[in-house]
């Protein structure tokens, strides 16, 4: 669709986004014997490797004592995988769908949402396994689990914001997705997933705490691990939601400004 889509049009097309998200998943694993199971096997394997390296190789223990380092690591990894997958696939949302941009009238605003939704669908599977695993290990979050949707929404919104920005820019400059993948790796190590704030002097920890993904990871831990005492601090929560909303709004605005040229360039 050449002009910006109106909200009713986007709403009417919501079913298509789900289809595109499903198609993206099915397409990624088409031809493999295990199919979509790979979407779970891959994060599980990476988690196992991290677990082995840090718990048995480097013998890292949690400075906070309980909960165990392993539980903190796995929960953090799960949240991060969802984010990084949504962002890195989101960068290709428009360029990978040239067939839709150029051939059919379609509300293009929906395109960046498909990879985000696909990542969240996988993430729900990972979470289900994780919650079951934690429960078997004697760590059942109970009512705390009801906080999970909030943090799931948080990670989705943040990822969608990035997806809009990157998908639009990627059309014109193909280096964008490569750069994003690189920055994501740096960001991973900046986020308290394999380490924790307690390992740093307080001044450093304060600075690192403003990382929006730190809020997400801490939130996941609060929701899933009963031993974690407190949810993320209020000022971190406020700054996260402000950042995420601004990023999303500016990403959508940017996308709508550039979209008229998509069909010309692709």
């Amino acid at each position, binding site marked *: 669709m050449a002009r910006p889509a109106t909200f009713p049009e986007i709403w009417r097309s919501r079913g298509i986004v789900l289809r595109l998200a499903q*198609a993206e998943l099915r397409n990624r694993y088409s031809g493999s014997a295990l199919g979509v199971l790979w979407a779970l096997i891959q994060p599980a394997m990476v988690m196992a490797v991290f677990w082995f390296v840090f718990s048995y190789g480097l013998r890292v223990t949690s400075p906070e004592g309980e909960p165990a380092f392993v539980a903190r690591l796995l929960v953090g990894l799960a949240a991060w995988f969802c984010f990084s997958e949504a962002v890195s696939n989101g960068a290709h949302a428009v360029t990978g769908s040239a067939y839709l*941009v150029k051939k059919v009238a379609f509300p293009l605003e929906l395109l960046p949402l498909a990879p985000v939704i696909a990542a969240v669908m996988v993430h729900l599977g990972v979470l289900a396994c994780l919650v079951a695993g934690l429960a078997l290990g004697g760590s059942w979050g109970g009512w705390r689990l009801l906080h999970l949707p909030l943090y799931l929404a948080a990670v989705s919104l943040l990822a969608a914001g990035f997806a809009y920005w990157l998908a639009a*820019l990627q059309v014109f400059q193909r280096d964008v997705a490569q750069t994003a993948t690189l920055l994501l790796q740096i960001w991973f190590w900046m986020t308290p997933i394999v380490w924790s704030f307690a390992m740093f002097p307080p001044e450093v920890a304060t600075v690192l705490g403003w990382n929006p993904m730190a809020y997400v990871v801490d939130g996941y831990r609060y929701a899933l691990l009963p031993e974690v005492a407190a949810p993320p601090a209020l000022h971190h929560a406020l700054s996260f939601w402000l950042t995420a909303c601004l990023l999303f709004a500016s990403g959508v605005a940017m996308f709508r400004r550039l979209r008229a040229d998509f069909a010309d360039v692709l």
Partner: protein
Amino acid sequence: MSDAPAIRLEGVSKKYRLFASPGQRLREALDPWRRSFHEDFWALHDISLEVPRGRTLGVLGLNGSGKSTLLQIIADVMEPTTGTVEVKGRVAALLELGAGFNRDLSGRENVITNSRILGLTHREALERLDAVQEFAEIGRFFDQPVKTYSSGMFTRLAFAMAICVDPDVLIIDEALSVGDTRFREKCYRRLKSLQEGGCTVLFVTHDRGSITQLCDDAILLHQGRLVAQGSPREVSGLYTELLTTGRLPDDAAAVSVPTPAPAQAAPDADAGGDPVAAFLADPSPEDRLARHPLYNANEARFGHGGAVVLDALLVLDGVANPAAIPSGAVLDIHLRLRFDAAMDPILGVSLHNEQGVLLYGVNNAYLSQELRPAVPGEVRCLSLRAPLPLAPGPVFIELAVASERHRVCDQRSRVLALEILRGGMFLGLADLGFTMQEATSPP
């Protein structure tokens, strides 16, 4: 007819911005001072057009004339730079030989996704799957990834999908030029029934025959402007002229065209009123075939000399050198030859189609027509009568003179080109003129 037009364009222009690199485009889009980093290219100028509901409009034009841009704008894939576009109802578009197919997904999944995008519910999409599969006739490939398809299969599936979603407006951009004749005829039949059901169709093709057969109206685009609008026959006549001469008659700038003769007189023949008499009376020994309006610059010429094919005049219903003739018409061909040696000449004429298939070839010996011996320096005219019940498409004429010992003097292959327009419906290369009736049972 009906109340409101299905498609209405008013003052539509499209400017492409040409950038040195995609990065420049981004820089311009985001430049805080709105500086410009591009050059303009106007693909469409001020197009105003109305297509009433249920009508079929043929769009003709040379490559680069703006046809595809126009269709993309009507299909709402591209935004016009200026002007307004109104299209009523569900639009199914086959733009540039394709549909919005994801190459990695199967035909089945693509059809479902595209049907949903075109506004069907999931259930409706599933209900129509069988019809699409049946029409496309691509067998087991329906469940294979689209990237494994041949271009013919791709088009079949795209076309089958487009017509099975009950579009109000159907846009076909050259999609039917791929695919075999049998499928094409099937598509034409289906198009007819869609037309009867009130579907508005926009149709781009280079097959002028199907324009005249399928369309109610036609337009001609040239360099981004709408230069003619009228009956398919008139407009395709103009188009043919544009194709062969590279320019339009001066009065064609007017939107409505006068009844055009799809013809142009031979350069020297229009002086004396009757072109045939003038041609036959012309004693010039000069080789003028290269200036013939139907001359094909890619002719293949071969020969040992002794005789030269100088010029030709093709006449249909009093019109000299028509670039397009309806299938089944009878063409008069007049040839002027020069002989540089004494011989018992053999004159041959043959026709090839675009693929180089010999459609028909004959010479005076086959026709048991003895030609009188030639003397050196003689310029002589010969006439043939040629019924052409051929399949629509380009036809190339070969002219050849040989001496009595079958030594080729001058053989000019593909020297003239003309277009056969669709007459009656048939398959194959030539209309053999079968007839059919109900058999009456014996008493």
